């Protein structure tokens, strides 16, 4: 009995490893190709010789990218929006999730219903733009951070997490004389680090990838985030047809430069993930064990 089990188990393990290795290769190899292209000469790229290793190594593209002030400014703007934006997101979401998670909050159901409504219906572009303009947020970076401060989905995640905390803790802090804000800050939040990290990562990635909003609300080119700048460099408008041929783009930017810019834009996010990974795992597990 034992031998048969271990044989099939061994096969299963071998199959598992092979399958997962192949799967991860399909995701990793194209990325390797991008890195290789960013370091290869233009001639080699044109001839299609570049596979997974740079051919005729050159650093000219990186030099070009590093010297381009507008890319760095866009990079800085993206970092600014991500850091400050995520902070605003977390503050707003946590302060809204906390009362919604308490049974004793009187208007709870109504507020939850309204929030649910916003998940289903959303305003079309033009009225939203006019609203932004009247408030005075157009052409500022706040337009990218404040209107989307609370995502209903993340709110619900955080709310369910808060609801799970033992009410005895909250009650005891109230007995000790803490106000609600103090309770939130000193008791609830420290216990919710995994959930906050998870929600925080979701928000950060959304903020880092912010593109459509920036395009519509921001007119000043100095305030473009990195994604808009990337798109300008990478995508040539071969697809749409305005009926006027004279604007067709026949010479695109050099492919090597495109690859180098892609790397410059992606590396930061890739570097942050490993550090926050342990929170994911913790966050997933916390909900599974009942205390």
């Amino acid at each position, binding site marked *: 009995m034992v031998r048969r089990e271990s044989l099939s188990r061994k096969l299963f393990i071998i199959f598992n490893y092979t399958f997962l290795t192949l799967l991860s290769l399909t995701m990793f190899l194209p990325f390797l190709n991008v890195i290789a292209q960013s370091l290869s000469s233009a001639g080699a790229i044109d001839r299609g010789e570049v596979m997974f290793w740079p051919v005729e190594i050159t650093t000219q593209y990186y030099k070009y990218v590093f010297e381009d002030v507008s890319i760095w400014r866009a990079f800085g703007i993206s970092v600014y929006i991500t850091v400050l934006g995520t902070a605003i997101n977390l503050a707003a979401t946590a302060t809204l999730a906390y009362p919604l998670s308490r049974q004793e909050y009187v208007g709870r159901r109504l507020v939850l219903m309204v929030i649910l409504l916003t998940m289903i219906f959303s305003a079309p572009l033009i009225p939203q733009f006019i609203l932004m303009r009247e408030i005075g947020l157009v052409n500022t970076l706040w337009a990218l951070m404040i209107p989307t401060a609370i995502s209903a989905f993340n709110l619900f995640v955080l709310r369910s997490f808060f609801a799970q905390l033992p009410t005895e803790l909250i009650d005891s802090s109230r007995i000790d004389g803490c106000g609600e804000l103090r309770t939130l800050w000193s008791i609830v939040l420290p216990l919710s680090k995994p959930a906050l990290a998870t929600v925080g990562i979701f928000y950060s990635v959304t903020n880092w990838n912010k593109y459509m909003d920036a395009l519509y609300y921001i007119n000043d080119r100095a305030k473009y985030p990195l994604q808009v700048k990337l*798109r300008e460099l990478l995508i040539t408008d071969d697809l749409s047809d305005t009926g006027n041929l004279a*604007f067709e783009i026949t010479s695109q930017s050099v*492919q090597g430069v495109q690859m180098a810019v892609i790397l410059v834009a992606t590396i930061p996010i890739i570097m942050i993930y490993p550090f926050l990974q342990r929170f994911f795992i913790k966050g997933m597990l916390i909900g599974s064990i009942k205390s």
Partner: protein
Amino acid sequence: MPKQAMRMLMLTLILAIAAGCAGNNQPGTDTGSAEGGETPQAQGATKFSISMRTLNVGYVEKHPDINKDPYVLALEEKTNTDLDIRLIPHNEYQDKMVQMFATNDIPDVVQGSGGISGPELAGAVENGVFLPLNDLLEEHGKDLLAFIPDEAWARMTDSKTGNIYGIPEILSNPSRRATWIRTDLLEKVGKEIPTTVEETLDVLRAFKEAGVEQPYAGRQNFKYADTFFGAYDVLGYLNQFKLFPDGQVKPSFFDVDNMKAAIGVYKTMHDEGLISREFATIESTDFRSIITSGKAGMWSMNANELPIWGAQLMENVPDARVALIPSPVGPDGGGGYAHYNPVTRSFFINKKAEDRAAEIVQFFNWMVSDEAELLFSYGLEGEDYTVASGEPVFEVPTDTAGTDKMRYLNYWLWLVQDTTYNKMVSSLTETGQQMIDAFDNMLAHEGRKGIEFDPRLDALIRYPDLNPKSDELPPLILEHVLRMVYGREEIDNYEAVLDEYLSKGGNEIIEEATTRYNNKENAFE
């Protein structure tokens, strides 16, 4: 007590945030930052805002603030104006323009692309957003009237009222694409430059025997690979409607015999390997790589790319030589590619800027002067060129920064010009002179044109499957043609394809086209 204090603190915080956020408000986008020059402008400099598409010009897109650019400042000085340039991102041009009109955020001058009914204008002309310019042009724009040909003015005129609504930037030579061939390969196989379709096929066969990977560079949807459709005059694009002997105005692919012949040519090429078997998946980046890496023998591309693509090709393949040749001719002795719109960009003046309209027209009028030509071709005296015995001396830059700047000046900042080629710059290099020669002596005599409807026929919008692009066949026809070329469908089946076209809405299209042509309603030939 702590609770009270907490409440007061909260209140104070909220008020502080509100005050802080209010301080961050920009004063709306209408005023913008027109402070382009800290240097005080000359008395009475006309201030106006103008929206312009970036056209993917690197210099513009990388610039921290285009309104402070030395060339823009020089332009302002020479024309006594104070510009507030508002850049519109190239790829999102249409969306941003529509948003601009919908939110009534319209600058004093709006740049459009093409005539008065482009989708980016969102009906602005019909709704009276812009000034009619007839009288202003008579008084302040005489040079413009002289420089710009009638067919370009026709595109800017509302046929019902006769009002001219915009100032066009023109393209005098509508034949923009050419047939290119590798003359070194031609020499190697010992053949002459082909003139007819049959001769061309022979040359391609010889190329194939000599080992050329892609004798004719094919591309997806026959875009930039339509040499042989042009030879038989069956291009079928948006501006290729024809008056047929039966009195109806139909797309040119209704010429059954010629269409079958053209499809037959492509099928032969596919079967004999003269065009890549995967041509239907080759996109623009690969297309360019294939050509510049020396794998192609013959292809179609814009003639003004000769200096750039030619240089790149010779860098990759030192022995390569390339030349522009007359396109292969079909049974009627003609050939070439679809003609382009005579108007490239166009500039409209907002009714709200009526008080400054005269000066704005004068500003555009200056654009066609010699002084303007010098500024936009070479740049600033002393910085970009020197003057020797009264003549400007200029060296064409070869570094990336220099070529970026040239593209910006020649092509973007010069608002009204003949965009065929820049004479002053091109005449300085050998490849440039070859290009000028090709344009003036060869391309001017070839090319296919038909009847164009601007605004587009309503029926075309209703039936997207039958809607051609400016350089591609309608999806329905294209699909069948591709199947025939790949051997999945019989070419003799073509009449059935046309019947399918008619039954799926083609009849309405033809009816509307014929009516509009007979009524001369915005039908351009």
